[in-house]
């Protein structure tokens, strides 16, 4: 009798894709609303985006049970911060908090792939991208989740400077207007939906700017 391997896993992958793009005075955060398990669709209408603070919005793909637990921990920590400091957390502060929270569970990680988007203290758009254990970086745009391998090369081509070797990109912000960024995001998801089976159903877009927060939906392929 051959040695039996453990075949129960505490994790599951519910699929989905998230994207965030930072502009000069706005930030666009988007995610699809499909939740799946294996070859099945669990629901077509699940939001992966949560507003953590006035100017911080997080989108997470991966294992949604872990994502939900992570969201609750962050919301609770933000409430404590508000009581202690009498103000909302800034986006860079929230970014650090998220990193620490993820690393806290370094040896039994949250199976969550996050992008944090918002406005920094100067009102400029900021996007922070994470791995599952909290390593993070401020960037001009990012994509996580099952469709990220399809979307990131397209965003690199449209937004990135020609080569990091020739011209290091100092500015972590894209030169696009808000409308152009939204158009780009819609195109990214329509294309990713064509080729990734875990992405589809509906696209939820959140736009943060000086006038506040706005939500938009777009239909995606349902097959």
């Amino acid at each position: 009798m051959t040695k039996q391997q453990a075949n129960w896993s505490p994790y599951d992958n519910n699929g989905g894709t998230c994207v965030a793009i930072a502009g000069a005075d706005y930030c666009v955060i988007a995610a699809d609303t499909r939740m799946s398990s294996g070859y099945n669709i669990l629901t077509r209408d699940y939001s992966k985006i949560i507003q953590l603070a006035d100017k911080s919005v997080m989108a997470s793909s991966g294992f949604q049970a872990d994502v939900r637990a992570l969201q609750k921990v962050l919301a609770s920590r933000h409430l404590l911060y508000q009581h202690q400091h009498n103000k909302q957390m800034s986006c860079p502060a929230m970014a650090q908090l998220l990193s620490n929270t993820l690393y806290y569970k370094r040896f039994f990680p949250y199976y969550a792939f996050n992008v944090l988007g918002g406005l920094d203290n100067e009102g400029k758009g900021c996007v922070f991208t994470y791995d599952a254990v909290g390593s993070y970086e401020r960037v001009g745009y990012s994509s996580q989740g099952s469709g990220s391998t399809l979307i990131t090369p397209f965003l690199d081509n449209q937004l990135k400077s020609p080569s990091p070797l020739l011209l290091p990109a100092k500015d972590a912000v894209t030169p696009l207007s808000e409308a152009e960024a939204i158009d780009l995001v819609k195109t990214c998801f329509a294309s990713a939906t064509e080729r990734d089976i875990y992405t589809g159903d509906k696209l939820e877009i959140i736009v943060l700017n000086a006038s506040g927060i706005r939500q938009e939906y777009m239909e995606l392929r349902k097959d």
Partner: protein
Amino acid sequence: MIREAMEMPPKGGFSFDLCKRNDMLVKKGLKEPSFLKTGTTIVGLIFKDGVILGADTRATEGPIVADKNCEKIHYMAPNIYCCGAGTAADTEAVTDMVSSQLKLHRYHTGRESRVVTALSLLKSHLFSYQGYVSAALVLGGVDVTGPHLHTIYPHGSTDTLPFATMGSGSLAAMAVFESKYREGLTRDEGVKLVSEAICSGIFNDLGSGSNVDICVITQGEKEYLRNHMLPNPRTYISEKGYSFSKKTEVLRTKITPLREMVEVIEGGDAMEE
């Protein structure tokens, strides 16, 4: 003498020669190459005048869609068609092979092919490969003995049924058939039911998607309805379009002349030495 004996052609069936070497490579950490599987929802049903086959058109490689509009209903004979699920290469190869065999058989016998002939050829081939040819088929056609519908599993077992579904979307499609199938459906009712079953697979199974292909076979006539339904158009096309002006940048250019291969001897009689 011994050398000649070793060079005899293989007798068919699965050759286990490389298994030991493959196991050794996997132990050393080599990742086995993945196959292009068709995910798939394929169905068939018998109606009043014959057989209707249906299939989706998505081919997947793991979580990625490799082909958005592939053809899963394969030609076997003028009166017999076969839907294939499983490894795409296997379904193509096995249906092509049996289709050729049927043609030769038609020349030999001078008669129209029978569905049971295709069935026997397919099942004996799949059985001799012990399930390693990963092809799950829905075979349907109309011959002198009437309409026939069969399912064939990768290990070589078969079933004869009035309605059948195979592939990862088979449960979604079968749910529709079990609710709505009855004997003696008309052609239009049959096509509508098959489309509904395939759509159920397309929308509820992630391994199936895109369009619906249908094939209606009746006595002496067949109708191949490629892309009968297109329920999944692209949802957003940017009006302004995108340009891809950034080319791969040249970092460095270095030209290395190849060494002269031929020695050219000036004048004289080079050939004479």
